[in-house]
């Protein structure tokens, strides 16, 4: 979120309750106000749908990483056991693939986990040196925080503030970055 310029000005609605903020999203949107994002201390089911966020495609990435892991182990076992130094073990084929299923499975899981989590961190811009854009420090404790980017809305600050209050916000603050 570092793409915001220094003059970005936000209205921040602070809600006390997860059910209230979920309803508020629909109300604020129907009042014609564009919501920047809602920040919550825990996941609220249906909040991303209410905000109109598209369904995540990270599952596709996870599958592709898993496939990569699987094919890596298929290649490695084939190269080592079947091609580079073939040995007859127990009278079986050099490439006795049923015995390699456990390692293929393990590498599939390993690549899926690491690749998917890596994708997650990159796509959300998370990392050890990232300074988070915090609209209200209590949003990781017990408050549910709705941020409205004033530059992206036609309505006045006062109008939006009253929409937020009407939707159940306990506080409305201004935050400038």
């Amino acid at each position, binding site marked *: 979120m570092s793409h915001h310029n220094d003059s970005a000005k936000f209205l921040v609605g602070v809600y*006390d*309750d*997860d059910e*209230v903020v*979920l309803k508020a999203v629909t109300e604020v949107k129907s009042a014609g106000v564009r919501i920047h*994002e*809602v*920040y*919550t*201390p*825990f*996941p*609220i*089911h*249906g*909040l*991303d749908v209410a*905000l109109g*966020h598209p369904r*995540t495609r*990270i*599952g596709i990435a996870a599958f592709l990483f898993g496939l990569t892991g699987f094919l890596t182990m298929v290649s490695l*076992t084939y190269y*080592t*056991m079947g091609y*580079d*130094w073939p*040995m007859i*073990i*127990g009278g079986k084929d050099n490439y006795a693939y049923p015995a*390699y299923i*456990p*390692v293929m*499975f*393990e*590498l599939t*899981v*390993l690549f*899926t*986990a*690491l690749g*998917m*989590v890596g994708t*997650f*961190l990159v796509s*959300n*811009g*998370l*990392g*050890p*040196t*990232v300074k*988070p*854009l*915090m609209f209200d420090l209590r*949003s*990781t*404790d*017990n*408050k549910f925080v709705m941020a409205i980017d004033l530059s992206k809305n036609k309505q006045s600050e006062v109008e939006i503030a009253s929409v937020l209050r009407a939707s159940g916000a306990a506080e409305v603050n201004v935050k400038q970055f």
Partner: protein
Amino acid sequence: MHVTSPVRTPLVTGGKTYADVTEDICKQVEGKPTREWTIAFVISFVVLIYGTCCVFWTWWEGLGVWGLNKTVGWAWDITNFVWWVGIGHAGTLISAILLLFRMKYRTSINRAAEAMTIFAVLCAASFILMHMGRPWLAYWALPLPNAFGSLWVNFNSPLVWDVFAISTYFTVSLVFWYMGLVPDLATIRDRATSKVSRYIYGAFSLGWNGGAKTWARYEYISLILAGISTPLVLSVHTIVSMDFATSVIPGWHTTIFPPYFVAGAIFSGFAMVQNLMLITRVVFKLEDYITFEHIESMNKIITLTGSIVGVAYITEFFIAWYSGVEYERYAFLNRMLGPYWWAYWAMMTCNVISPQLFWSRKIRRSVTWTFVLSVIVNIGMWFERFVIIVTSLHRDYLPSSWAMFSPTMFDIGDYIFSFGLFFTLFLLFAKFLPVINMFEVKAIIRSASEKLPKSVSGVAKGESVTSPTFNKNVE
């Protein structure tokens, strides 16, 4: 949003608000170490130092310092390895399998149980390194080309599968655990008063801000991590059991091993979770989060898996007789009536009889009984591995090479090392990281709290709470 039947028993008691959850859990991280913690840490650390000296001597002098002989080539090392890996399984079961089953009671115990998994797998891995004798050559277990002077590793061997299984299991568990920690670390970061802790927790929370889009993706990856961890954890102990089952040693060459080992792993792991959580809940005053419901639910799993283990023991015996193979029959009769009869009967008593006591509701809801029986279960599960490994080896096909195994101070000292390592790491975790998953508890609190307030965060502290009267016998 959470629709829960009012007859459900509450998972979090004391009418906690979201802010209370943050406060109760962060208090342990932010405050000065308690006296109990300091004493426990010093003891664990001293044990770790003693154990480290023993391990160092084992490597310096060689495996001859152990009580092994040419007949019994595996004893305490592999017993301890299997025991620790097994203990680790409960953490993954709680965090992954119970997540897939939507068991909400996992939220209070998953963090500590996963930490236990990671530390237990580290202890297990340390025995793999120890039993190599020359740990600096441990990388030979990896598939490296011939330039290193050896052939490729043999991918037909369960020992090679084990290298992949254990390292994948450790890595994935660590990632799963750490991803679970990130939102809670952000909570600590945003409460931090000192520059140092804001910097450290800030770096480890990766700039988390809890946006709705991030949470949606986060929930998605948690579900996939749970989905892949479930078959992973089953594969790990399956592969560990194949270290034995694919051999031709009577007593090891048994097709029942994979399910039997997995059940035993969960059995001993839950017992260790009970031991750790019962202490943590008292020392950190978390009785409202880890309630009798949690203790009882875990005891039920201990009874279930303990019964599976019991059935497996009996099945093994029946099959040994039914196979008609005299060596197989002898191996099992020797276990029961031979020179190691005491280990066998210790295993039978601890693992088959003691968990059956949990059929009594009074016993499975008693802290003292639970603690004592959990210790007994873990003693029993250690003996199970000892019985499988040592009694199958010590009398082989040639009576002239029959031998007994007795541990030296280094067998014992290396085992003590793993306890020192485990408890030192667990205590560090308990002090510096939130022992309960705050955000998951907050997410279930509305359906799980004793009281169902209109606005959870609006309930004042200490407000009187009426507990439901009809929840006593309903599961």
